[in-house]
């Protein structure tokens, strides 16, 4: 479904992706862990086609099609969804206007307010959100946790086949984390072909959303891969503790 091959890119003189490769198959869940500032969010933006994050070299294929010539909205229309680490707030544009436009663009037809509200109603309840949020500006005055829930609300609405979750667990309290994860799990049961790339610092979320692979990203690439136990090991010993190579470097 998603193939990233030998991705290279630098930002402000720092090499963030250095021969990065990873393949994600249909229905798989891949978790990426890695120290702050390694380039995990950068990778997610590269996948989504952020104009400021262009590759020096490498290739990305999604369902056999090269993503690189596609703009961000075209990638989204192909079924890629990025739940961002820090969702933007946008003054003046209401959530409902935004979501209804996104839905209309996806369906290729204008969605009336009534149809839209009907579709939203259940999703908002599922996430235990306040429906008043629909009439407020996008994420404006939303708490960190409310913003994260709003990302999942959008996911439910847009029905992607590849979901990238960039630290969806940060900023969520225990109950909200549970609700968000239950919603993601329900989505996976309903759409079993969905693949997930989940960026996190904590194994806790992986107990809800069981990963097939846990990757450790360092030095611009995946240094090691394991399963859920590997995530627990990282939590226990830290990134350097589980990585012999970087341990050597530290001792140099």
């Amino acid at each position, binding site marked *: 479904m998603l193939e990233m091959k030998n991705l290279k890119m630098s930002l402000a003189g720092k090499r963030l992706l250095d021969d990065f490769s990873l393949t994600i198959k249909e229905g798989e869940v891949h978790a990426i862990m890695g120290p702050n500032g390694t380039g995990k969010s950068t990778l997610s*933006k590269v996948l*989504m086609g*952020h*104009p*400021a994050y262009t590759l020096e070299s490498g290739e990305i294929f999604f369902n056999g099609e090269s993503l690189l010539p596609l*703009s*961000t*909205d075209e*990638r*989204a*229309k192909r079924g890629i*969804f*990025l739940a*961002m680490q820090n*969702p*933007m707030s*946008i*003054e*003046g*544009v*209401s959530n409902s*206007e*935004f979501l209804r*436009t*996104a839905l209309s*663009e*996806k369906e290729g037809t204008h969605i009336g307010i009534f149809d839209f509200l009907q579709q939203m109603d259940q999703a908002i309840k599922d996430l235990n959100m306040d429906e008043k949020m629909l009439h407020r*500006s*996008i994420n404006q005055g939303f708490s960190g946790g409310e913003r994260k829930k709003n990302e999942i609300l*959008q996911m439910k609405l*847009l029905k992607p086949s590849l979901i990238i979750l960039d630290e969806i667990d940060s900023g969520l309290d225990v109950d909200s984390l549970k609700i968000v994860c239950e919603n993601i799990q329900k989505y996976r049961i309903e759409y079993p072909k969905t693949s997930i790339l989940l960026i996190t610092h904590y194994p806790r979320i992986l107990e809800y959303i069981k990963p097939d692979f846990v990757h450790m990203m360092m030095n611009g690439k995946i240094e090691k891969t394991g399963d859920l136990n590997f995530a627990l090991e990282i939590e226990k010993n830290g990134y350097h503790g589980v990585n012999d190579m970087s341990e050597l470097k530290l001792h140099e």
Partner: protein
Amino acid sequence: MNKITVVKDKILIELEQSGLMVQEHTIEVQQDAELLLVVTDSTANFTFHIEEGKKLDLSIKSQNSENTLYYELKKNSILCTHHLALDCTDQIDARLLGEESNLEYHYSTMNRKTSALHMTIDHAKSNTQSNVQNHGVNLKDQNLLFDITGRIPKSSHGCICNQDNKILTMQKGHSRIEPKLLIENHDVEANHAAYLGQFKEEELFYLMSRGISKEKCYELLLEGFLLNHDPVDRDTHDWFFRFMIEK
């Protein structure tokens, strides 16, 4: 709906309500009223007197015109204006002549030709309030100027004077904001925010990442910027935003 239409300098007056008196270019508001003023391809000149304790809800739609608008607010009166302008140069003077009078003015403009807004808010009496929001989008390569003055003389106490002036420059045009607050009395609350710029790349990325095309994102962002939740009817909305895509 009370309506005054000016097309190519010809004035048409349609009044449904008795509390509104129109003589020549002067409008007397003697009862709470709503009024729509539409000015197209004209040079228009109007004076509004809002009598004590009365409220005027005014909607202005103006295109390719030069307007001089003069507002006088008596004691306890309220003026609430949504002013939409396309390719206009406007001179707006509001005088808060009675205590506790209150002005809420939202001016939204787009221009392809060189355009300007010269606005003066004069807090002539104590405990008067003004809340002014001027948002402009300079679409092409011409000039857009906001020259906005708020004045509070020494004799006026307890006034509130807020200005929010913003211009987005979409292409190579020159935009300028000249905000002035002339405040001689210190027992007041005065704020002004001025912003010149373009849309933030991150905002565009966020919207596009939900599958919304770039053109549609601009529409959403411009709409948010220019209307900011102000209610407008479908016709007005379409009239205003059609300008954006016209050649």
